[in-house]
């Protein structure tokens, strides 16, 4: 069906709709050669049928008056039909008025140009919907399947092409495939809108790459942990564990000399998160820095076992720390008795 044929069919349908209150036989008789007439009008004159003949509803009124059939037998829905027709005519007027500033005869004509763009978007949305349905965890703005971006892009291209072909296909006479298509379009639009909202929300709290490591969002602001013993001495290479023996990881080494810190770590772990707290002893809030020649303890420090005394207590510095609450004493650290 060409654009002109669609336009004619639409015009005829609206004229017939406006004559809905007439007995079917009279209505059929009044509109029987309308399609042919419109076809001739469309061929002989430029512009749309509406521009040439006026609104279908107005055409119907003129036809009705000239034929002398008046209002005829008005069914219960007559008033409603008349109201719908009035609204329809008003919308059409608005359509033309708003189209002028856009530089098009009607808004509808302008939107018509955007239809191929919608076909492409529809293909993309379909690919993203498949990604969403198949993905176990998060995904980005491009389709992926099993974390395979190439496959995702191939599927994307295929779906875009399919969507464009579907769009260019002439609508069939049967109505149920069209309803199905409409339903699918609505589904994709809904999916797209939800995705857009999620994207907008993600913008706000995307705070950094180590956010998932932190125990709780309450500790998001913690960048380092400083452990002080009863003497008020900063404990180096401290490790924190929870009740299950899992290491509690807070913060991230982001001090300037973090490279020194790592190289200092004799364990030589490439992952700075595996070394003990504090990551940046230089940034300690209280007291003097621990002596840098303190040897790191053996790496796995399972809870329950007791460290050797030399490692557990750092050497006491000569200058006393300036912590008011816990003034350090020069007394030796309490000895730890091993408990089986």
């Amino acid at each position, binding site marked *: 069906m060409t654009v002109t044929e669609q336009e004619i069919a639409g015009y005829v349908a609206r004229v017939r709709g406006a004559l809905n209150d007439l007995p079917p036989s009279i209505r059929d008789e009044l509109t*029987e*050669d309308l399609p042919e007439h419109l076809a*001739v009008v469309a061929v002989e004159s430029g512009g749309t049928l509406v521009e040439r003949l006026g609104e279908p509803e107005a*055409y*119907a009124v*003129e*036809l009705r008056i*000239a*034929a002398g059939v008046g209002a005829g037998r008005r069914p219960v829905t007559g008033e409603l039909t008349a109201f719908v027709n009035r609204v329809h005519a008003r919308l059409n007027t608005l359509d033309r008025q708003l189209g002028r500033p856009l530089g098009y005869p009607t808004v509808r004509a302008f939107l018509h140009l955007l239809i191929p763009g919608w076909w492409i978007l529809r293909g993309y949305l379909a690919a993203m919907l498949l990604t969403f349905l198949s993905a176990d965890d998060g995904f980005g703005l491009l389709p992926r399947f099993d974390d395979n971006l190439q496959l995702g892009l191939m599927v994307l291209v295929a779906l875009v092409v399919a969507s464009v072909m579907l769009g260019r296909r002439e609508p069939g006479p049967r109505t149920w495939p069209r309803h199905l298509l409409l339903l699918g379009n609505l589904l994709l639009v809904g999916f797209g809108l939800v995705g857009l909202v999620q994207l907008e929300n993600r913008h706000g709290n995307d705070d950094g790459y180590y956010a998932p490591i932190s125990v709780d969002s309450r500790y998001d602001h913690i960048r380092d942990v400083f452990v002080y013993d009863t003497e008020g001495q900063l404990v180096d290479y401290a490790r924190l564990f929870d009740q299950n023996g899992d290491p509690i990881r807070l913060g991230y080494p982001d001090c300037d000399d973090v490279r020194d810190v790592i190289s200092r770590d004799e364990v030589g772990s490439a992952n700075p998160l595996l070394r003990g707290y504090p990551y940046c002893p230089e940034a300690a809030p209280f007291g003097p820095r621990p002596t840098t020649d303190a040897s790191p303890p053996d790496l796995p420090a399972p809870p329950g076992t007791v460290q050797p005394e030399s490692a557990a207590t750092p050497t006491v510095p000569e200058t006393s720390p300036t912590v008011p609450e816990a003034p350090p004493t020069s007394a030796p650290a309490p000895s730890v008795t091993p408990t089986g």
Partner: protein
Amino acid sequence: MDTTQLLKGVLDLAVLAVLREEDGYGYDILRRLRDAGLAEVGDASVYGTLRRLFAAGLLTTYVVPSESGPHRKYYSLNAAGRDQFARSGKLWRSFATTMDTLLDDRGRAA
């Protein structure tokens, strides 16, 4: 007052006059009316008028197959239609004469 308003009263007669020359189908009749100078005649008005005259028994119809497109419904005047045309024509002439006289007298005075 514009032509559209005047047409409402005389479209029946105009359509009958066109059909008296020669049978025709809807669009053909519309074109002949326009060619005759009734440029402002509405498409729907002509089609509606044809239905009404047919329903009043003044016209007969017959279908002519068209080599391109659908079959066309032709209208022709029957005896009743010719009678009606003669009476309406007479009425119009007398009415027009009255109007002419009226306009001439008043026109001279103005």
